[in-house]
């Protein structure tokens, strides 16, 4: 009973555990695997990322030069970033927005 009363008073006087979203947004830590993007000027369209993608989310063609990512298939594993010889694929901290 004493524990219960202690617990109630502690909770009443301590700040809330939840954030006041959407006024206060949670800060994502460094290194969070979020949205995948490309610096298209550096890309040589070699297709290494397409071959390694476990979910077949990437389509790369040389003629015409195109690099397409299907955000609904992407599992954000980061494998494309590792295999890219030009290091032109980057991961943002933020996730895909609902209206991608």
């Amino acid at each position, binding site marked *: 009973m004493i*524990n219960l009363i202690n617990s109630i008073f502690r909770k009443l006087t301590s700040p809330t555990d939840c954030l006041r979203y959407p006024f206060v947004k949670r800060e994502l830590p460094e290194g969070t695997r979020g949205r995948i993007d490309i610096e298209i000027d550096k890309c040589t369209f070699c297709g290494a990322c397409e071959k*390694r993608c*476990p*979910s077949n989310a990437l389509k790369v063609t040389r003629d015409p030069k195109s690099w397409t990512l299907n955000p609904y298939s992407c599992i954000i*594993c980061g*494998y494309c970033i590792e295999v890219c010889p030009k290091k032109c694929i980057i991961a943002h901290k933020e996730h895909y927005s609902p209206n991608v």
Partner: protein
Amino acid sequence: MIRRNTIPFGPQHPVLPEPIQLHLVMENEKIIQALPAVGYIHRGLEKIAEKKDYIQDVYLAERICGICSFMHSQNYCQGIEELMKVQIPDRAKYLRVIWAETHRIHSHLLILGLLADAFGFENLFMRLWKVREQILNIMEKTTGARVILGVCAIGGVKRDITPELSEYILRELEAVEKQLPELMDSLLKDYSVKQRLIGVGVLPKDKAHELGAVGPVARASGLRMDLRETGYAAYGDLDFKMVVGEAGDCYDRTMVRVKELYTSLDLIRAALKRMPQGPISVAVKGSPPADEVLARIEQPRGELNFYIRGNGTRNLERFRVRTPTFANLPALLHQLTGCELADVPVIAICIDPCVSCTER
């Protein structure tokens, strides 16, 4: 007058985290037979694995389960490394232990919370899950993701834990450990909770052995079986005491999980302390040879087996998964026979059912 009827328990039931149906044949309020019906979330995962590259399968294996995802990828990588005779760096072994044990803590806190919810203690459920958030934060900060970590790779791991992150983990673990005694007292010493758990769903030691129970279910019945004692990854260098129960009822199963939380906290601390410096991965080239391997690992729910057969190409010949929940289903059916209908949710939750793993 005895009335016999059949009650379908699930697949959608407030207490079940995932869909499984139990046909309960009742005589008045007593269950005389329980029959499982599975197959609601079968994904054909083993067949997909045969069609993908063996490196891509790491990600597939990780997605067998959403709760113990890291351990699935770890087991797969260990299997392929054994098959291809790859020696991974010592630091990678310690890092694998750290992430595996954080997964064990978060899985145990999750199921203890669900158990509290099953016997109607919603406040305890919320507070246990609040502690679990801190463990998820550790995973997010060290790997970049909260549940599907994606850091295990064939030949080692993909991310390192820096001294600053190590300090952060120790601070968080201390905060978690401070909160645990109060919550665990509510779970193990509360009169009402004891009434719901003690003597419910008893699985004697000989029956647990006969039915092939694994993990905390087997250990709660007194069977000394924990694959971590075989010393895979870095467990051979770390000391830990196996938690074993006696009675084999729901209370002992809960007690085993509670004590394992402390074991895992100690294991993470010890791993962080003893982790050697050096590389975290080695390059792996070539394809798995035409050979077979049985990879085994101790998951939060028990023993996880992967049978992997290569054929010299980049695709696997066969990938077979035997998950601990599948092994514990016969034990669950035995426990349900003869119990009251009101005890079914508690018994079902106490085996820590993970149906997605089971059906693959």
